[in-house]
């Protein structure tokens, strides 16, 4: 009997041909996943407070502006914005005209003045305009920590029930108004 030189064709080898595509498909899946990850800004963290009631806080007023201060009791009733700002924060200056614009449109904006000297904050508002309804002075930055703030400026959208619905990290820009803030406020006002 002669020794066989050719290996017998394994039955079903054609049926398994697609297995060779598996690594390619896996690679494509991982590639898509990583590409999506590249598009995310790692500095922008999701807020855990979304759809939760705003934290309890009570902040004193900015001396020399008014006597009202700002506390969690002031939240709710209608959709509103809560802006965290400081006079020493350069992006806050960039975003300020956007807040002025929203205030002119009738949007209620409360503010937490973060780790600021009251006289500096007042000078900032005198120079750039004061779009805020209530301002609470958070000298120690404790209330901001309860809001999960990790940098200024940050802006929260609070609904009628006093729940946080959206958090924007960094300066608000006109395109943010178009894309998210105005549509969300309109939806919450319904």
């Amino acid at each position, binding site marked *: *009997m002669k*020794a066989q030189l050719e*290996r017998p064709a394994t039955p079903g080898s054609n049926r398994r041909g697609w297995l060779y595509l598996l690594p390619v498909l896996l690679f494509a899946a991982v590639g898509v996943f990583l590409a999506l990850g590249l598009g995310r800004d*790692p*500095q922008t*963290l*999701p*807020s*855990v*407070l979304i759809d939760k009631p705003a*934290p309890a806080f009570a902040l004193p007023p900015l001396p020399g502006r008014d006597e009202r201060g700002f506390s969690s009791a002031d939240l709710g009733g209608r959709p509103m914005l809560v802006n965290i700002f400081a006079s020493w924060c350069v992006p806050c200056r960039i975003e300020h005209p956007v807040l002025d614009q929203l205030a002119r449109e009738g949007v209620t904006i409360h503010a937490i003045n973060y*780790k600021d000297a009251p006289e500096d904050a007042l000078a900032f508002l005198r120079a750039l305009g004061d779009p805020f309804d209530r301002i609470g002075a958070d000298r*120690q*930055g*404790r209330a901001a*920590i*309860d*809001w*999960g703030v*990790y*940098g200024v400026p940050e802006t929260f959208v609070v609904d009628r029930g006093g729940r946080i619905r959206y958090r924007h990290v960094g300066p608000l820009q006109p395109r943010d108004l178009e894309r998210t803030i105005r549509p969300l406020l309109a939806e919450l006002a319904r």
Partner: protein
Amino acid sequence: MSSFLLGAMFVAGMLVIGPVCAATSPDEMLPDPALEARARALGKELRCLVCQNQSIDDSDAPLAKDLRRIVRERLVAGDSDAAIKRHLVERYGDFVLLEPPFKPATWLLWLGPFLVLAAGSILVVAFLRRRPGAPAEPEELAPAERQQLDALLAADPRDRPA
């Protein structure tokens, strides 16, 4: 002075100075050494949200300093380590923990490497089992075949084995 000696002195200096350079400053420290040790340990497990890849124990960011102060205040108030972590997670999410917790959303993260290892092992075993073993011993030539081979070898003397 030899450069080796200089280097050794530099390393020795760094070893002495290094721990002092950690961001937690002496004025923040708690008088109770046991509580302070817990505060330091917790600080190493909590992320500074500003620098993101540093712990609050290492970071010089003002927010890290605030968080260190909160950790110490709550320790003094008698909170457990878990309660303090929960307090911060309620504000900043799991991201504040440098080590992600083990929960359904992170199962893939924690178990993924083992899944890949298991899948790889299964593939390797399957591959090795399907591969034909060592070639079998050649069969003895049939008398007719032997005769044919001898005839061929005889025809050309160069083919004869040396």
